[in-house]
């Protein structure tokens, strides 16, 4: 088996594993009550803002 073939098999195997993980955890087990939904929504907004700040800062730094 060539090295290229081995690497391709490795990636293909792990990609399939990732798809399997996504299928396994497709449905969250914890009931999405209103407080849980609000907490997760707040978290997403928070992270978007923070990542946005990070991107802005590093863009400014790169341009300088």
């Amino acid at each position, binding site marked *: 088996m060539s090295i290229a073939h081995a690497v391709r098999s490795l990636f293909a195997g792990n990609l399939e594993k990732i798809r399997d*993980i996504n299928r396994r*955890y497709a449905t*969250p087990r914890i009931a999405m009550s209103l407080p849980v939904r609000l907490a*997760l929504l707040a978290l997403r907004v928070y992270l978007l803002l923070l990542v946005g*700040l990070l991107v802005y800062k590093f863009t400014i730094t790169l341009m300088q």
Partner: protein
Amino acid sequence: MNFITRCYYLFRRVWKSVSLYLVLAGPGLVVMIADNDAGGITTYAATGAKYGYHLIWFLLVLIPVAYYVQEMTVRLGAVTKRGHAEAIFDGFGAFWGWFSLLDLMLVDWLTLVTEFIGMTAALRIFGVPEWLTVLAVCLLMGFMVLNGRYWTWEKIALGFCLLNLIYIPAAFLVHPPIGQILADGIIPNFPGGFNGEMFFFLMANIGTTIAPWMLFFQQSSVVDKGMREKDIPWGRFDTWTGAIITVVVAVFIVVLTGTILHGVDIDDAAQASALVMQTNRYAGTMMAIGLFDAGLLGAICISLASSWAFGEIFGWAHSLNTKIKEAPWFYVSYFFTLVSAGLVVLIPGAPLVLITLFVQVVAVTLLPAALVFLILLLNDRETMGGHCNTRSQNVIGGLIIGTIIVLSTCYGISALFPGLFA
């Protein structure tokens, strides 16, 4: 029953409890003391140099803060028998699971680089070249994980935790004024007022006390150790002991630099050690040894936290109780993380300062998410049963976590925009 017999039976009862604790001790002690990693030592050294003894009271306040957060991971691990990453995947689905896992990988790897920075800087003081430090550390850590079981690894790690106490005798060597320490450090006060720089130092101290990897590490460690629900009280005691020891060490570092280096600007702990050496050779030497030990402890725990998390999700065998043949990917990911982080430090002109800054900010993205998930998971009555969070635990935990989220966010923003809080 005469007095001597009573004493004998009392001694046997106490010794039995101590022996049981020594068997179960580990996850809480190791994670808390490892929290005094290279970055932590730098923070405490800088705090002492900047403010003398005036912020000791704040460090003492962090004991219950650290305990409340980490105790939740003990319960979660002992009840669910799964690590934090897997718990997030299972509870909240693939999106949040991948976010947490990949963020953890990035934060852990960057933090590992900073640990190597600390270790190489510490041993450079003694003339040891960086490549030799990196090689020796990789070999030592390889030996620890390959030659034994989790129990062996844990007891060696606890040995290094003991070495972390070296700052205590070091602080006594510089003859700190006890009266002044008590006068300045016990009553809450903000020397120079509550300005931007003070805020930065407070946030840095909080940020170094609760790190994202600690949540993942302690929970996985509890699972790998095989702790059960009935062991939770001992896990709590272990965590309390670890929280107290870690803050005590932090206080002694502040006392050390507060005595010798008050008013001096400190960039890193290695610089502080070299400066202390000029005044007291032994204290400075102990500080440098402590810095190396701190970096090593941090590296030991952080590299495992990543491998455990990856193994949990990908379904690999992921225990220190397994051999390489039984868990090849677990050990491959462990060594890959370790060696690649070590090699970064050896790259000429590597942006080590930028990496150190980046770690602080990226950790902020994971910490709030991990804390929110922790609280939500601990409120899942279906899984946690009688070990679910009580209302008072939710209130206290929620207040602590909310405060940490706000302050660590401000810290991340101030790291990005240093002039903002001036």
